[in-house]
């Protein structure tokens, strides 16, 4: 057994490394947003907070981020479930089983750049369309990049996370022994449809639920992809915060910090909510 001292030092170090950056950062952001510190701040004021809390930009950025992450997640889950259930045998071995790991080698930056070169008005698809005679001019090509609906961002997020979920579901198929449950259901006279909706899908989704929640939050906070493919309005939350703080207009900085505090509090409350709803939520074990 380790000495009690080592145990306590380790736990202290853990809590320190994990909480000090967040807490000290929040303190700085709070002081700055209230005008207590900062270059142009002369007096304590809640102006920045009022602007952020009652203004449109913060909430529209949160809404847009949530929309992007929920839509991307829904599409990815649908595709991943379809492929991992239909091609279960092929995913276990052979070329497909290896090829599916390949997209995990792509960082968001690279995938976003790829999407840009594919989908922009002068991109590959547009060129293909022109040569096939589908469009007469690149100006009539639809806006998929820097567009109001975030189509490019969703497309890229789907490319990034779908392979991950295909692998996850395919692993769960094995570890959760889904094949034998399916067999059992069939023996009891369940139809294929019933097996899918009452057996396969519930097991897969339940077992993957933590990952699904976590990834939804990750996508909400994604930065590189919307930075390359998004536009000024609507913006995703990370991009909006960084822009307020790094912009040339120094008067915007307190608002940027107020936004970052609100965002951190929002994520914190979601995490705490998930934890109190199910205390074992974050108890992980390997797939």
């Amino acid at each position, binding site marked *: 057994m380790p000495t009690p001292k080592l145990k306590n030092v*380790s*736990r202290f*170090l*853990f*809590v320190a*490394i*994990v*909480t000090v950056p*967040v807490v*000290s*950062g929040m303190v*700085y952001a709070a002081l700055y947003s209230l005008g207590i510190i900062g270059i142009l701040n002369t007096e304590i004021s809640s102006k920045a907070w009022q602007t952020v809390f009652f203004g449109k930009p913060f909430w529209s950025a949160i809404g847009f981020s949530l929309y992007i992450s929920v839509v991307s997640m829904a599409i990815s889950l649908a595709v991943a479930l379809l492929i991992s259930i239909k091609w279960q045998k*092929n995913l276990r071995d052979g070329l497909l089983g290896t*090829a*599916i*790991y390949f997209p*995990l*080698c792509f*960082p968001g*930056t*690279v995938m976003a*750049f790829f999407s*840009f*070169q594919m989908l922009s008005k*002068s991109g590959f698809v*547009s*060129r*293909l369309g*022109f040569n096939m005679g589908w469009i007469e001019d*690149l100006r009539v090509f639809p806006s998929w990049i820097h567009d109001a609906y975030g189509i490019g961002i969703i497309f890229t997020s789907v490319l990034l996370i779908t*392979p*991950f979920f295909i*692998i996850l579901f395919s692993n769960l198929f094995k570890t959760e022994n889904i094949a034998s449950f399916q067999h059992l259901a069939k023996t009891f006279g369940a139809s294929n449809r019933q097996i899918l909706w009452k057996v396969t899908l519930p097991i897969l989704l339940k*077992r*993957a*639920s*933590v990952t699904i929640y*976590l990834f939804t939050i*990750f996508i909400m*906070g994604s*930065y*590189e992809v919307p*930075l390359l493919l998004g536009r000024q309005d609507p913006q995703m939350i*990370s991009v909006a*915060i*960084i822009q307020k*703080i790094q912009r040339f207009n120094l008067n915007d900085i307190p608002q*940027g*910090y107020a936004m970052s505090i609100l*965002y*951190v509090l929002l*994520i914190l409350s979601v*995490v705490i909510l998930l*934890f109190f709803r199910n205390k*074992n939520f*974050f*108890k*992980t*074990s390997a*797939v």
Partner: protein
Amino acid sequence: MMARKILQSIFIASIGLPLAFLLLLSFGRRWPYPEIFPKELSLAAWGFLDNSNMISTFFLSLGISFSVALFVTLSAFFISKHIAYSKKRNTFMVLAYIPYLLSPVVMAVIFQYYFILVQLTGTTLGVIIAQFLIAFPFGVIIYLNFWNENLKSIEELSKTLGGNAFQTFVKVLYPLSKNAILLCFFQVFLISWFEYGLTNLIGSGKIKTLTVQVFNFVNEANIFYASFACCLLVIPPMLLMYLNKRFIFFAEKSE
């Protein structure tokens, strides 16, 4: 059966498409609309490899990611053990998820001030420390799956039989934990290798890692060099995948 084969072939081909496309662009020179493929091919971008700039960028990224992965793998290994065997394990877990769930770039923006105070912004060390702060909780999360009752009993057995702490680690724990250690190392390496927002902010644009360079090239509208930098970015993860595909995949699972 035939249709499934064809569909799968198309699917596999589409998986390879991004790399093929970026490789092609990296050899491109002129790509006027509406040409489908670059009109002129050249080795200009790859000739850039001769140019010491790109080589140093590549090795700087490699060095940063390697250091972060090494520090996290070592520190998280010893610390995670005491977290895993704690009665408050679940509470610790929630704490571990917080930095990991906040976007790294948002974390960077709120703690950036302290890096400026101690003059760590714009330095390689600063970037390594900042990335460590983001990746450490994740490292602990990876290891928590590994410490279990079974392992605890084996470790206690070794001590009962007279093994000291060092012997227990070298002869018992290390051989059993090799896979977990490698998984943690490579996962953290990838987090660091893929990182852009935090690196750019804490590095004040001066620490030019590969991801930072991709953005620089994109801003200069030099798509051929950007494609080239993208190709360099995906090579190390592919080597990892070749070594063992399990190293590039990690997922949580609910009870």
